[in-house]
């Protein structure tokens, strides 16, 4: 339910960038959201589309790239799929593993005219 606050923060950044680069119209907003960030893409799109009306981003399409939950093994340095909880490295069996991705929540780029 916090996607509306996230959308408000997102729109503020988009409009700030539009102002700084003196563009008339933002056509695309590309964001990256990690699987563990606790943000539901469809709810974020719904909220963003609601609040963008009447701004320079009114026609902007929100494109969400989802980043997977991944980890790394400190022993064999292999990458691990952490979308399900794993207790040990599937490659070498080591328990010395750590999350490295999945928390992303940032604006990558925008397209504007």
């Amino acid at each position, binding site marked *: 339910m*916090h996607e509306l606050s996230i959308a408000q923060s997102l729109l*503020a950044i988009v409009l700030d*960038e539009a102002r700084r680069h003196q563009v008339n119209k933002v056509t695309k907003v590309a964001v990256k959201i990690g699987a*563990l960030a606790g943000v539901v893409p469809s709810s974020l799109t719904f909220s963003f589309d609601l609040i963008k009306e009447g701004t320079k981003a009114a026609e902007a399409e929100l494109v969400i790239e989802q980043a997977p939950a991944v980890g790394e093994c400190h022993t064999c340095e292999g990458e691990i799929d952490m979308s399900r909880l794993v207790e040990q490295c599937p490659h070498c069996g080591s328990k010395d593993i750590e999350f490295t991705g999945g928390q992303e929540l940032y*604006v*990558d780029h925008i397209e504007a005219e």
Partner: protein
Amino acid sequence: MAEIEVGRSILEANDKLAGQHRERFAASGVKVLNLISSPGAGKTSVLEQTLKRLQGRLNCAVIEGDIQTDEDARRVAACGVPAVQIQTQGACHLDGVMINEALAALDLASLDLLIIENVGNLVCPVDFDLGEDMKVAVLSVTEGDDKPSKYPALFQQAGVLLVNKVDLLPYIDCDMERIHRTCHQLNPEQKVFDLSCRTGEGLDPWVDWLTGWAKG
């Protein structure tokens, strides 16, 4: 058509405010906890029991986040501790702006420990840094042993996990070992205390640890 590289965190405004609060807390010498759980896990009961045991040991204050009512703030104030209520009017989490307003009512310099009780919710509060030194997760055994794996973000970020209502274990199917195992996997550094606010079991080790942490 122009492509503009942005690379900005969507939560930057909140993160900036949290950073300012963190500096203010450090300058005042007050340690700050952000207490997070689902509704009904026992956050306010944990607070009451903890504050009672901290009397004479630490100067405490509480910021209470609730969607409606000031019932929790009144429960905390009854423990003789200053309590500031934030009513979020529907919002599912506390953010930096709300904390900023609440801080106006507190004398930080006179405090050793400030506990922020977040809105009952296992998901949203985790995204919003409040400038705290540590997140504390409360999980009650009646919620089920699958919750840490279903809601990993909180259990990954919490420096302390309080497993509440352990007096009910004989009556329910909850695998404590699974809770401990999953949380250790998500955060090997996490301190875990199993306790019951109803019987008082397990509260002293937690409060002793907290006292040492706050003074450290």
